[in-house]
């Protein structure tokens, strides 16, 4: 069929089953947006910033497992996507970004809105292409979708000059794809799996460490079957939350810098750590010299470069989790570790008791006004929205959410793990809600991070996407302030978000502040959304009820103690066995 490059792109999207796109128009993609104008079967959500378009496609992908797609123009359109691409790259999210490029005859001329998109996006993508010939377009589109979603997924950029979009050619979209040398699913070594099974059989204190790879490979159900055979306790990474029900008796919680005390203790005490789809990020391991000192470590990962990258690995298994778990399940006998389970249950009970004692003592003298704690706020929010997709920003809000929200299935917890991108939450939630219109979607934000992409309230209102945004508002960039308090002599350098008129901006711990902060409820109303400011739990409950009934986006701005900290914490350079809780070593 004779068609333009732009029509071929639309054909590719349809053939790949894409019905939702995120994007922002511009000079170099006018031909592409023009064909989308008439495409009733493809919904295009226009964000207010290209970064947000990528995060939205990312949220869509994480919530569904499908490939997210976005379209941006050349030059600044492309450069604005870098943070979004890097976020998706770090967390292995399948994305295809189509960027317009200047006409081929102008390439390299410093043309208007020209930038070397291929060069700039290389380090933040799994792969990228420039389509320099119209005849290559269908093959490249097919390869882009294949690469993005296969093996360890990741973002792929396809840079398409404007005159390639307008050039006509009689061709078809290919049905199949093959890329020489690309082996997305490596063959699993049966011997390696056997070694792993034998190690579990010999271990007295085995422990599963589950991560985002379990979500990506849709292996959670197989894993639950395995837990029916092997009574082995589990810890998770930040990205592994949701694989195993938070209330499952074998789930000890998240490990790492702000992990649960029980989970970190279990890692320190286990004699075999079986890592499934994790990359042992530094926020998870703390000082690697003190990580799992009594254990042999087995690691299963689809990406051989992830194995043994950060910690020594005794039993490496390269392969997809579905294949490996399938092979294990065929041979798995019933294994019980009652003494070890008893010990881990004690870790959990001890942690619970410690937290109760600490909360009786209080963190720091009587507050001037008793504001609800982040923990209480999150409990009420989750009671109001029990079956929801929760999307977080980055910082204290993210860690409180990770510690306190409860999940019973994967893909309901979306957070920027590896890159730690402030400004991720609100746009990613747009993508999640577009994917699951029937599920309530709640953003847990801080008053700092929400402002990094707050313009997306306009997208929500225009597209009539009802979301609930809960801002834990302490008037600080809270996580940085916490580090300044604990590790930088209490000098709160440039972390206060309040007005500074007549203020020397030399904030210190405990210093009273009469300066006003932002009125987020008014901002919400200005965009055409609903806004509530709450200072107590009764008002929060009312606001949540109103939000549930509303068909508009809602911001609930919750004032919290300005200097509330995230506990426990593993100080930088310390091992995860050296935790502090409210300033006390535990």
């Amino acid at each position, binding site marked *: 069929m004779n068609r333009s490059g732009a029509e071929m792109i639309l054909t590719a999207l349809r053939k790949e089953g894409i019905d939702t796109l995120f994007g922002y128009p511009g000079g170099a993609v006018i031909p592409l947006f023009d064909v989308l104008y008439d495409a009733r079967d493809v919904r295009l959500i226009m964000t207010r910033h290209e970064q947000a378009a990528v995060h939205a496609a990312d949220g869509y992908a994480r919530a569904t497992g499908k490939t997210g797609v976005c379209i941006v123009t050349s030059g600044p359109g492309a450069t604005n996507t870098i943070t979004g691409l890097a976020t998706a790259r770090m967390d292995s999210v399948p994305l295809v970004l189509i960027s317009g490029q200047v006409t081929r005859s102008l390439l390299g001329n410093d043309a208007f809105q020209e930038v070397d998109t*291929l*060069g700039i996006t*290389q*380090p933040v993508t799994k*792969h990228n292409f420039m389509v320099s010939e119209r005849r290559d377009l269908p093959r490249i589109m097919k390869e882009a979708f294949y690469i993005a979603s296969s093996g360890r997924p990741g973002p792929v950029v396809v840079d398409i000059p404007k005159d390639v979009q307008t050039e006509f050619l009689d061709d078809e979209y290919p049905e199949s794809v093959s890329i020489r*040398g*690309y082996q997305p699913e490596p063959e699993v070594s049966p011997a390696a799996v056997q070694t792993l099974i034998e190690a579990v059989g010999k271990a007295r204190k085995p422990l599963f460490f589950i991560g985002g790879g379990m979500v990506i490979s849709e292996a959670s159900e197989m894993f639950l079957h395995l837990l029916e055979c092997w009574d082995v306790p589990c810890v998770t990474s930040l990205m592994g939350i949701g694989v195993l029900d938070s209330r499952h008796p074998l789930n000890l919680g998240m490990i790492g810098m702000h992990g649960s005390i029980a989970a970190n203790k279990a890692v320190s005490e286990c004699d075999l750590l079986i890592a499934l789809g994790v990359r042992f990020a530094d926020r998870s391991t703390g000082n690697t010299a003190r990580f799992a000192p009594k254990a042999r470590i087995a690691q299963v990962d689809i990406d*051989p470069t992830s194995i043994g990258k950060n910690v020594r690995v005794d039993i490496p298994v390269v392969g997809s989790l579905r294949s490996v778990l399938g092979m294990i399940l065929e041979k798995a006998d019933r294994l019980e570790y009652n003494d070890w389970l008893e010990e881990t249950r004690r870790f959990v009970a001890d942690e619970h008791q410690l937290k109760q004692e600490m909360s009786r003592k209080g963190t720091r003298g009587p507050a001037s006004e008793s504001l609800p704690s982040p923990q209480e706020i999150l409990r009420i929010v989750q009671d109001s929205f029990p079956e929801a997709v929760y999307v977080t920003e980055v910082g204290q809000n993210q860690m409180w959410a990770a510690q306190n929200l409860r999940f019973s299935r994967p893909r309901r917890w979306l957070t920027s793990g590896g890159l730690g991108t402030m400004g991720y939450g609100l746009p990613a939630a747009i993508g999640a809600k577009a994917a699951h219109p029937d599920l309530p979607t709640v953003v847990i934000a801080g008053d700092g991070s929400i402002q990094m992409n707050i313009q997306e309230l306009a997208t929500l209102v225009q597209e009539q996407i009802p979301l609930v945004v809960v801002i834990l508002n302490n008037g600080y960039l809270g996580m940085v302030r916490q580090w300044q308090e604990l590790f930088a002599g209490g000098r709160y350098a440039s972390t206060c978000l309040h007005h500074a008129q007549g203020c020397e901006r030399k904030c210190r711990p405990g210093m009273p502040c009469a300066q006003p902060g932002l009125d987020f409820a008014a901002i919400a109303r200005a965009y055409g959304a609903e806004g509530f400011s709450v200072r107590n739990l009764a008002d929060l409950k009312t606001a949540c009820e109103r939000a549930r009934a509303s068909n508009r986006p809602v911001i609930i701005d919750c004032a919290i103690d300005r200097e509330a900290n995230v506990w426990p914490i593993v100080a930088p350079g310390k091992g995860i066995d050296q935790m502090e809780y409210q300033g006390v070593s535990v």
Partner: protein
Amino acid sequence: MKYRFDVLAANHTGTLSRIARMLESRNHTLLNLQSTIVEDDVSRIRLVVVASPQSAEKIRLSLHRMIGVIEVRMQEALEAV
């Protein structure tokens, strides 16, 4: 130690810069870099890099993972060729 990598890769825009960038991101410099066309659309790229055995293995795996790379061979290089 010096390591030599012989990489067979698709001769596409960006392949060489992708390899160079990967080395840059790991803070390695190149002692030698050669690229020759060996068959239609396929180049043989030879790299010589100073690295510890662990880093060399990471480089090998990263090269292997790169899309467009068909084959990677690594050996200790007695002298920079």
